């Protein structure tokens, strides 16, 4: 069966500063990989490269069997991306934002799909409010709605818990579980250990642009993971939690 994500020797540097130094990863459908790493370890760059926002310098990556270089446009249909930026327009309403992205993705039965996604994320009441008037938490929810609107097979979530209220985090966890259950896959980068360990079926650690650890989630306890993380990245849990603030 085609893996959801298959990465070999992926490299990317910003001038003299290398962000990814040969990342190897694979992920099957039905799995969610939580990637931990200190600031500057290359987490965001990895998401950007996979999301076709940044150009890799070397290596190959395939998502749902589609090559990152050769089938960019087709690949974009298969992925849903959530990052620090919401990609929303402040002066359009929630509904207008979703309609805009839905049209760009040629989502069939768009109206019905927008209502469905709005209900999923608990945004029904807010659909005709301008984004500017929404709280950060609601904006974040809306950006998740935007990312899943076209029914992507692979979710790329860059620190999705940032700015989400506890209630919304539950919504996200449920959404993710359904996504995996339906045969989808997800790559999640995170600072938050509890969240990451809760969301991922697999965990990995990224340090200085390389994957230095990969394990099935049930095979590792939280304490073991903390110890491994500290050993591999040279950062204590405390330092990591502070970075997450």
């Amino acid at each position, binding site marked *: 069966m085609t893996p959801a994500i298959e990465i070999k020797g992926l490299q990317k540097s910003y001038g003299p500063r290398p962000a990814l130094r040969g990342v190897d990863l694979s992920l099957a459908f039905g799995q969610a990989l939580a990637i931990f790493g200190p600031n500057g370890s290359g987490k965001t760059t990895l998401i950007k490269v996979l999301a076709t926002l940044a150009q890799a310098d070397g290596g190959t990556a395939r998502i749902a069997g589609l090559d990152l270089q050769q089938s960019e446009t087709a690949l974009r249909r298969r992925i849903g991306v959530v990052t620090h930026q919401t*990609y929303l*327009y402040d002066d359009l309403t929630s509904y207008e934002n979703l309609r805009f992205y839905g049209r760009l993705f040629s989502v069939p039965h768009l109206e019905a799909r927008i209502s469905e996604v709005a209900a999923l994320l608990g945004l029904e009441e807010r659909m005709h409010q301008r984004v500017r008037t929404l709280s950060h938490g609601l904006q974040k929810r809306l950006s998740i709605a935007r990312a899943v609107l076209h029914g992507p097979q692979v979710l790329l979530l860059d620190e999705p818990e940032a700015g989400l209220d506890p209630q919304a985090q539950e919504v996200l966890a449920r959404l993710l579980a359904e996504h995996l259950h339906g045969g989808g896959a997800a790559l999640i980068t995170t600072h938050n250990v509890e969240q990451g360990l809760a969301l991922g079926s697999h965990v990995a650690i990224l340090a200085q642009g390389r994957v230095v650890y990969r394990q099935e989630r049930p095979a590792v306890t939280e304490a073991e993971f903390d110890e491994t993380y500290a050993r591999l990245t040279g950062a204590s849990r405390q330092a990591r939690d502070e970075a997450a603030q």
Partner: protein
Amino acid sequence: MRALLSILWKDLLLEIRTKETVTPVLVFALLVVVIFDFALEPRRDLIVTVAPGVLWASITFAGVLGLSRTFTLEQERGGLQGLMLAPIGREVIYLGKFLSSFIFMLAVEAAILPVFSAIFNLPFFLPQVWVQAILATLGYAAVGTVFAAMSLNTRARDIMLPVLFFPIVVPVLMAAVEGTSAALRGESWSGALRWIQLTAAFDIIFTVLGAMTFGLVLKE
């Protein structure tokens, strides 16, 4: 095509709601016109000769401001990257941004021309002038869209956009001034024709180049 219209519609809707591009740029353009008028006041007799130059210098300065506005607004929440996530050709994104910049600039010009005619007491409402204006604005938008996207990620972006933009659009500016002058001198279409042709050729060349290279500019 649907995607192109969606981008255009989104930009127009945002502009209608916020009025953050056309209005300030229009005020700026009018100020430039007035400044020129003050500066040239002692030589009223020369105004007929220099008026087309004043007009197009104002439009060029305003244009560069408008171009950077349309992209800054897009970038506030990473909107340009949002567009990049869509499964559409990069040339569609280019053409979408190109057309919205074109429409905004044309709106500014439509408002400036009557004021200009009144201030300088010259008959600017000639079909040649309008054809020339539309073609020149297309040229500005074709080149400016690429450079504005570039300057987004560039240090000293406020200065980089004009530094890149002005030298490249010199032929368009020259053609617009000459074409307008020919029309004002009462020459028929034949006087303006070669300038119209030149601008049209510029538009085609740089729209094609822009559409081809825009994707390369967008990616990190």
